[in-house]
């Protein structure tokens, strides 16, 4: 099995002098600072020689004290080995620019666009460096830089002024100088790029084509995002995706909150999977602190997270069914009813239905309530029989097969290349599950299968989700049998200020790979929190999948991704 130190020595021998600085955290985590000129070659080397074929994402960090910026490329492998490599590239703060990895990894596009619009780091060779989450007017403000004064200015209370640029755009200047306000004619340096609407209009080639909006307010979308399809009759010729409608800037907000307060923000990223978001954040901080979680707390975490997975899959599947069957479709309501039972179980432990904030650094907030195991033993067998019934129901429905089979098919290779994860990737037949890849909590001790599909189409995605519910039930049953008694929190008090350090922690969210990259500079707040959301990654694959389908299929494909724009926008 490849280990992190082997990967490091391989890089060092292939590219002498390319590794400026390195740290082997464990067998599975490699941190290395790479010479910015060599980064592309190093990545090529890793992907070809060490099968680092999973580009997990990238994070931009503004080190204002060192007057430099850093882009952290996070890479892993689809099952060949379990090493996660964090390759850092440094660039000066004035005109920051690094090489784009889009040529090597298709899905690097969105991550780099986000870093560009938030931090102003230019990516050389990126084919479409357009804003992703921010609106056009905010480009140029670089709001995630550490010297960004906010809107309104946090220090002076000044609000940004609205300025009309010479080319007719409305801009907001942060912060404006008095002279600029006086004059009102500031020449704003605005990056040149076509707007979303212009890009759409450029794609129209004939009079018989039109752009149709599916969103931001539409019965199809699970939350506000704009999916525009260029249609000719019923055929979708091209799709355009615009997100950021509910961009909350959670990553930036967390920099201004204490470590503990950050937990409540992770809840709000995806409210149907709040527990795995909690887990991800807390796990990263435990890594920085070197905290050992007591056994009982680990079991409790696994139980609630698997319960959360069940309810998330139920609502994901149920909502999707309404997209291809209408709201009068009865099984949808049955799923919601069954989900209610699971939610009640979670509520009895955490005290909340959706936003739990239950996981704590090194433990959990409270112990399981009295009689929880008995309650579970009543609900879980029922849930199991119901899920089997649902699987049977869809397997037998000819209309369901006609609508769902071979719709939005992803091949295993495409799935890997596009950076999908979770049920979407597993439906293609790739058994890639963070619970197996990263040995966190008590998952290595538990017996469970990684559910995979065969065709990677919409029907498979639903099928994988439903069968995962059965696996989750199996996991919870094992946990209930094995859970030891003991403490649920670490003995020592968790300090208010964390030691300086950084960690990347991955969990299997109901939607796929959820990763958080947390940096502590020794202060009472996180220096930087980067969230690698699973739906953000899956979302990116949507536009190429839709090309050439029918409008009705577009809905079936987009729905089967189990979308959560709240998480992808953060």
């Amino acid at each position, binding site marked *: 099995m490849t280990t992190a130190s082997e990967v490091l020595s391989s890089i060092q021998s292939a590219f002498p002098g390319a590794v400026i600085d390195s740290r082997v955290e464990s067998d599975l985590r490699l941190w290395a600072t790479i010479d910015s000129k060599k980064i592309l070659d190093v990545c090529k080397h890793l992907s070809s020689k060490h099968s680092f074929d999973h580009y997990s994402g990238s994070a931009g960090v503004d080190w204002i004290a060192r007057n430099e910026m850093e882009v952290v490329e996070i890479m892993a492998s689809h099952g060949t080995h379990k090493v996660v490599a964090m390759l850092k590239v440094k660039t000066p703060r004035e005109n920051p620019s690094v090489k784009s990895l889009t040529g090597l990894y298709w899905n690097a596009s969105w991550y780099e666009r986000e870093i560009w619009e938030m931090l102003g780091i230019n990516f050389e060779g990126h084919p479409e460096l357009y804003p992703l989450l921010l609106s056009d007017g905010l480009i140029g403000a670089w709001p995630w830089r550490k010297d960004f004064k906010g809107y309104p200015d946090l220090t002076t209370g000044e609000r940004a002024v609205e300025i009309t640029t010479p080319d007719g755009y409305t801009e907001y200047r942060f912060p404006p100088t008095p002279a600029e306000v006086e004059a009102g004619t500031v020449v704003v340096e605005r990056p040149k790029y076509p707007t979303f609407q212009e890009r759409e209009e450029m794609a129209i080639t004939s009079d018989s084509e039109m752009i149709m909006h599916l969103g931001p307010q539409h019965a199809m979308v699970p939350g506000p995002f704009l999916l525009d399809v260029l249609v000719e009759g*019923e055929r979708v010729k091209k799709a355009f995706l615009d997100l950021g409608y509910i961009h909350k800037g959670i990553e930036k907000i967390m920099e201004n909150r204490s470590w503990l307060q950050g937990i409540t923000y992770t809840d709000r990223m995806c409210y149907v999977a709040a527990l795995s978001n909690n887990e991800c954040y807390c796990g990263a901080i435990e890594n920085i602190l070197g905290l050992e979680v007591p056994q009982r707390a680990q079991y409790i975490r696994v139980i609630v997270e698997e319960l959360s997975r069940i309810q998330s899959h139920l609502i994901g599947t149920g909502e999707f069914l309404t997209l291809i*069957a*209408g709201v*009068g479709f*009865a*099984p949808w309501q049955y799923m919601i009813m069954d989900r209610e039972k699971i939610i009640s179980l979670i509520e009895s432990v955490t005290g909340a239905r959706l936003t739990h904030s239950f996981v704590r650094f090194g433990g959990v907030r409270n112990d399981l309530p009295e009689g929880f195991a008995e309650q579970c033993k009543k609900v879980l067998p029922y849930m199991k029989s119901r899920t089997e019934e649902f699987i049977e129901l869809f397997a037998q*429905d000819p*209309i369901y097969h006609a609508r769902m089979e071979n719709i939005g098919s992803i091949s295993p290779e495409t799935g890997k290349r596009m950076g999908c994860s979770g049920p979407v990737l597993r439906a293609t037949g790739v058994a890639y599950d963070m619970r197996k890849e990263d040995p966190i909590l008590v998952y290595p001790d538990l017996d469970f299968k990684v559910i995979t599909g065969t065709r990677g189409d919409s029907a498979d995605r639903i099928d994988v989700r439903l069968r995962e519910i059965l696996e989750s039930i199996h996991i919870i049953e094992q946990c209930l049998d094995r859970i030891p008694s003991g403490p649920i929190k670490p003995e020592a008090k968790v300090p208010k200020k964390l030691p300086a350090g950084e960690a990347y922690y991955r969990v299997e969210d109901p939607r796929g790979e959820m990763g958080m990259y947390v940096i502590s500079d020794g202060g009472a707040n996180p220096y930087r929190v980067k969230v690698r959301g699973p739906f953000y990654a899956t979302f990116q694959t949507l536009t190429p999948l839709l090309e050439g389908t029918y409008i009705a*299929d577009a809905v079936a494909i987009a729905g089967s991704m189990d979308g959560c724009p709240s998480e992808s926008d953060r």
Partner: protein
Amino acid sequence: MDGIIEIITKFAAQEPAIFALIIGLIGAAVISGVVNVGAMLVIWGERKVLSDFCNRFGPNRVGGRWGILQLGADAIKLFTKEDIIPGDADKGVYVWAPIVASMATMLVAAAIPFGALHIGGRNIPLVVANMDISAFYVEAALSLMAIAVFMAGYSSNNKYSILGAFRGIARMIAYEVPMGVCVISVAVMAHSLNLVEIVESQTVWYAFAQPLGFAIFVIALITDLGRIPFDQSEAEEEIISGYNTEYSGIRWGLLYFQEYNNALLGSILLVLLFLGGWHGPIIPIPILDIISPLIWLFMKVVIVLWFFIWVRSSLFRLRIDQVTDFGWKWMLPLSLLNLGWAVLIGSYFA
């Protein structure tokens, strides 16, 4: 009493045209009342039954726990809403579309027998216009709704609406043909195109005499009514609300109402053609024996409507290309097969 009848017969003899007009107007008033009240009950029934299927309550506030006055409240709301016509709409067509839709359903209602009264050992049908080709006429008039749908979709000047209108027309063309062939098959067996005679000729229900034709007619009827799994022209998860996206207030209400009018009339047509119409054992109780055909018809229609709602709550929506494929490649050949069967059996028993 005799005097009044005498005056009326005398008047009818002197002024046949005016008499026919007056009778027609009375009939029109009666059927529009019956059909519209019936459709309201259908809407209420659908909401309640669908809620039962989905384990919900449905309307349960206005008018007691059964929510029976909910529709009245909804109607008042629709009537008092602001009337919005989109600025870029084709105003004339836009305004007329709901009216054409209502007209289409009233044309159907005119020729459909709503039952019969059992008086003196024979059934007296309750029909306004008892024409010789009423089965054919009703079938033709039912498809007029598609024109209203297209008018609404085209005139709205909206992308979703026009797609809904296209889908509606494509679907109608694909399914009107097999539906018409099924009606012809029934007429061949009954040796008549008159609905009353078709009902009276059913010693064996045509659903049993030609099961294939019955199945095709049910599917085609669901398609014609635009209900799931054939509601592509309105598919709200794809094209918002399809052809009536831009409509609001009472104009939308009229379009919506006509769908349920059609559902009611279509169910009655199905019962008349295939399920023995008002046939059924006469209830041997005074007064009830007179209306017992009506009761049988009512019960059969309720079962048919319940079946439609059941279908809605349990089936997925087909894609429009699958719908037209199925219509042309399966429904039409099978309906022609059924026609051959009807000719064979019909001539054998004649």
